[in-house]
């Protein structure tokens, strides 16, 4: 890896219905065949990554690997969230809660994939009643399940809903690479949100910053959320995603790092969305082949920086 070559990190929040298990959304998405359609989307993604040899990070909810309810470890969760998990697990379709078939597909490009944690049950830090200890247990469970299944170390973590309130507690137990939302720590009012929104039309996306934490952990901020599906302003969001991804690639200079993140199921929401992402992948592969950029995982990025300071004096 060349430290000066511009870099792109692509990370997926791989969660299926677990991401919204405490809301009615998973039922709607299930009814719309979103999770079922995701299987086909996965084939396209695997094919694209395999052809282009693009490395990606997949932050997985550990419970996607559970073969039965008995395998779920829920003791550490607040009672209401535990109940939601149980009813979600019992009432959802296998394709909404289980990811083993998708993991099989992912393993076809095993050497291009970094497996990261997205907790065990997608518990989020702001959920009422969640304690630091409970949250850390959820992360620990996911790490042990993922490491056992994939036979390798988990070195990165994506906080569910980007809520990083327990970052230091997790870092003490697991000094990993954490992805943060670019707005982490900023108090953004309505006016600022509008100004920021308008800025997206003319400004480049923020570069990813890599910051060392107190316990040996590292933080990487995101740059571009590659999603425009849903909501009132879908066509504007679509235009902006296209505009910003193009601008990001055209304005890259030496030393820049950008972090693109997305949810795979969003790509199942429309064929156009998937096509747009696949085109993005082809574009970065072409630029990579021309020596204009490198595509790395979250772990690659930090590992390279750490190496510089690891020498024996």
């Amino acid at each position: 890896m060349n430290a000066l070559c511009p870099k792109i990190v692509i990370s997926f929040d791989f969660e299926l219905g677990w991401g919204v298990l405490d809301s009615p959304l998973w039922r709607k998405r299930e009814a719309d065949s979103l999770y079922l359609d995701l299987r086909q989307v996965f084939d396209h993604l695997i094919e694209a990554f395999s052809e282009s040899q693009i490395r990606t990070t997949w932050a997985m909810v550990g419970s996607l690997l559970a073969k039965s309810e008995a395998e779920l470890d829920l003791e550490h969760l607040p009672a209401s969230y535990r109940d939601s998990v149980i009813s979600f697990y019992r009432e959802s379709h296998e394709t909404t809660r289980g990811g083993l078939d998708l993991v099989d597909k992912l393993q076809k490009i095993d050497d291009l994939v970094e497996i990261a944690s997205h907790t065990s049950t997608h518990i989020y830090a702001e959920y009422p009643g969640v304690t630091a200890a409970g949250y850390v247990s959820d992360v620990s469970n996911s790490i042990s399940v993922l490491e056992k299944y994939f036979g390798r170390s988990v070195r990165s973590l994506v906080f569910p809903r980007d809520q990083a309130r327990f970052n230091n507690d997790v870092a003490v137990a697991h000094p990993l690479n954490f992805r943060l939302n670019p707005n982490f720590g900023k108090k953004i009012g309505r006016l600022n949100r509008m100004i920021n929104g308008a800025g997206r039309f003319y400004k480049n996306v923020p570069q990813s910053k890599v910051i060392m934490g107190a316990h040996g952990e590292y933080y990487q901020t995101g740059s571009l959320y590659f999603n425009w599906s849903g909501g009132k302003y879908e066509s504007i969001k679509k235009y902006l995603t296209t505009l910003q991804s193009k601008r990001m690639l055209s304005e890259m200079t030496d030393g820049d790092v950008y972090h693109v993140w997305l949810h795979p199921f969003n790509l199942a929401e429309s064929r156009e969305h998937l096509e747009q992402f696949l085109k993005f992948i082809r574009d970065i592969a072409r630029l990579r082949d021309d020596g204009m950029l490198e595509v790395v995982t979250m772990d690659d990025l930090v590992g390279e920086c750490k190496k510089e300071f690891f020498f024996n004096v």
Partner: protein
Amino acid sequence: MINRLKKIATRHGLPVYLGVPYEVFIRLYAFSIFRSLVRVFISPKQPMRVDFVIGSYNSGTTIIKDAIAAHPSICSAPIEGDQLSGVISNNECGIAPRAMMVNVCEVVKDRRDNSVDTEKLISDLRPWLVKGKIFLEKSISNTIRINKLRSAFPGSKYICVTRSVDGVVKGIKKRSKPAGVLRQILAQDAYPDSILLKQWRMFYSLVIKDYQDSDVHFVSYEKFLESPVEELQKIFEFMGLDEIDLAYSDDLLSVGDKALRIKGREKSNGINYLGSYAELLSAVEEVEPIV
């Protein structure tokens, strides 16, 4: 308020009516737009050589730089060159005053980028350059870029100021706080020791890595406080400067016709001096490696 203005003026060795406008000028000069305007009125100059004072934050680099700069053959800027020019960065990224190490990738990028726009840097520093004198630049960030400064300024010398890890850590904690997103990440208003220990180790292990006997001279801050005349003589000799009258009494160090107040002699009590490559190497090895 008046005391503060007096303090600013004293820092520049000027009366208040000159010291305050000078401080305003320096602060404005940190902005590239102002720099480009001012440059029109100041002719470019070429210093005889550019030498560097390097070391960790809060290791005593400023006092040692000021003492060296009191020699008549030396000129220097009142603040760090990385604040007066866009050519070199302080790598603090607005979130980590005196703790650049948290921006690991920026530091790595800086080290690996071999180019320094020498002409632009010299041009930016022109208000403080004097033809025929050695320009002494002190920026902590230069500690991580010795090799590329060597290429950019052939023949340059490096005065590496060392200080015990405890003194550095305490000093940074006293004077600086994390800001912005870093403060949110740490969830506290002070730097944890772990980061500052790693940073101390980073600075000095990089110096050890880039060390060359011919152009790096170590000076222990604590030893300098204990015997400033002897230490300054050694530095002047290393830099190839003419001998000059030096004297030290009642916390006042006289360098030719200039005088500097040197306080804090008690800081050197019971400290193992890190005044040589071997002493520094042994101290660095004692600190836990970065993980």
